[in-house]
């Protein structure tokens, strides 16, 4: 099975804090990680490879330092890696990003494309389905479990809010994965040590057949008018009271 996994390097938002004085985000010193939903996708791909044989290729669109992320994925056992990087890609919204990634994917062989459900920085959950649309592929988003591959079909479980669907999807298709699906494996120490031998295909705008008007800031249908952090208005000062007093006050409120 030829599996492509789309990955994104994101800041570890569990560590991000807001500067109480300037009310802006403190981004300095926040480590970068593989987006958790994407890492789960890599783990699923590696498990499928172990079951059915084949090749796992990871792709990312990002700045040069995303190479570090790709190396860490090599250390987990992926077979090939592509970094789509070009200053002209900067400022792309999800539509433009999906456009760029799709134009690359079109040139590669694949049976299955896996993308993380959503990125912890953008939180949109749009890139996966938009790529599926550009490539005219069947999709299942928010997959809770991959059951098996059978007769050119992928059997998956999708948990909706109230019920769970068991679905059979024709390959090739695109699925989006959730962090909760698995515990992604760690890097292997021996693979990590050999990382310098691994090639990363560096892809720039020139390598792609894509209209320059449909990428970057100018090629994005949406744009950000403004961003702001929520102003925190203290409603009351905290008081020290005994647990018993607190219990009584809470009970009287609820009644």
């Amino acid at each position, binding site marked *: 099975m030829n599996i492509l996994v789309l990955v994104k390097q994101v800041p570890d938002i569990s560590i991000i804090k807001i500067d109480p004085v300037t009310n802006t985000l403190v981004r300095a010193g926040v480590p970068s990680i593989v987006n958790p939903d994407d890492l789960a996708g890599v783990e699923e791909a590696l498990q499928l490879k172990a079951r059915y044989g084949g090749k796992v290729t990871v792709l990312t669109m990002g700045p040069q330092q995303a190479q570090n992320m790709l190396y860490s994925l090599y*250390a987990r056992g992926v077979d090939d890696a592509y970094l789509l990087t070009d200053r002209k890609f900067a400022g792309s919204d999800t539509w433009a990003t999906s456009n760029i990634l799709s134009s690359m994917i079109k040139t590669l062989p694949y049976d299955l494309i896996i993308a993380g459900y959503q990125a912890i920085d953008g939180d949109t959950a749009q890139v996966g389905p938009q790529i599926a649309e550009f490539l005219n592929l069947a999709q299942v988003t928010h997959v809770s479990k991959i059951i098996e591959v059978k007769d050119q079909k992928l059997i998956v479980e999708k948990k909706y809010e109230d019920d769970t669907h068991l679905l059979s999807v024709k390959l090739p298709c695109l699925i989006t994965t959730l962090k909760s699906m698995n515990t992604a494996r*760690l*890097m*292997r*120490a*021996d693979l*990590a*040590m*050999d*990382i310098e031998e691994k090639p990363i295909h560096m892809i720039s705008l020139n390598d792609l057949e894509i209209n320059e008007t449909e990428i970057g800031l100018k090629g994005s249908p949406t744009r950000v008018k403004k961003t702001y952090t929520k102003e925190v208005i203290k409603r009351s000062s905290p008081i020290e009271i005994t647990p018993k007093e607190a219990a009584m006050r809470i009970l009287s409120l609820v009644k």
Partner: protein
Amino acid sequence: MSYQLYLEAVNDFTNRFVKPLAHQVDEEEIFPSDTVKEMALHGLMGIPFSKDYNGMGSTTKAYVDAVRILSQSCATTGVILSAHTSLASSPIDTFGTEEQKKKYLSKLCTGEYLGAFGLTEAGAGTDASMQTTKAIDKGDYFLLTGNKIFITNAGYADVYIIFAMTDASKGIKGISAFIIEKDFAGFTVGPKEKKLGIRGSSTCELIFRDVKVPKENLLGEVGMGFKIAMQTLDGGRIGIAAQALGIAEGAFERALIYIKKRKQFNKRIADFQNTQFAIADMKTKLEAGRLLLGQAASDKDQGRPYTVSAAMAKLYNSKIAVEITDQCIQLLGGYGYIRDYEIERYYRDAKITEIYEGTSEVQKMVIAGKVINA
């Protein structure tokens, strides 16, 4: 860049598989078999050996960093790797025949086999030459009889490097080394010793009663055993120095977190000068320990003589491990004495590093010997 990623891999491994179990491993004296399996899956069991034998093809430095990082969370896990790599795999790598390397080293490096080393006897500790375990040449096999005590990884190892007297009349030159498999008839393992520290580590007696050892399992040549043992221990010392340093570093990190949080007399105890002086002392010792350890590993990797640098690394790091863990408990006060706070374990674990694989006294003999007789 790859070395950084390697260290990150070892750290991540330790945080996921080793750290969460460390307390229980000690409390319940459990040998962490599952962790050993995971170490194998993550490529940690053959770091300094050639890829021809399934090793990582890396350096002593890389191996020693792994032992150190593991020991920062769990000294038991650190010594399991150290004994396996330095004391079992290493002599086969240095002295073994091609067949022996193919048969044993390849499996030790993948972690399919766990290794151990048996030199110490009831009457032969520091005086290792007083071997009473005998191996009689019977033509197409050796007949092995005797007892070994205090053997690390005993009962879990698949392969043991055992030393025995093949010719008592030759003294030290009458000792030979053998590769013993766990299933050889006549070989049994005694019950697990109850220890002060590294309580998860399996330390037992080995009993050999007329064990038939095939001729091809002789390691090196007849009479070479003592030399093999001493050279192996030289390398093993570097591993233990790493374990000791890791123990000291682990305790230091925990104490540092505590002193920055804990307040008495309206200040953090980190703000008292006596605490600050203690931190400065410990930090300097750790740095000195790291440098000695680094030098020993580098000497070995570069093919320079490393007997003295290894001895100094072990002597110093084991000493500071005991001192630093003691000091760290003191900084935590009453909490330092409570087992749930996971610092007193470091104090108990540290002590063994001054004893096994050559006591600190032996290290001093080695160092002084080389210096005075140079």
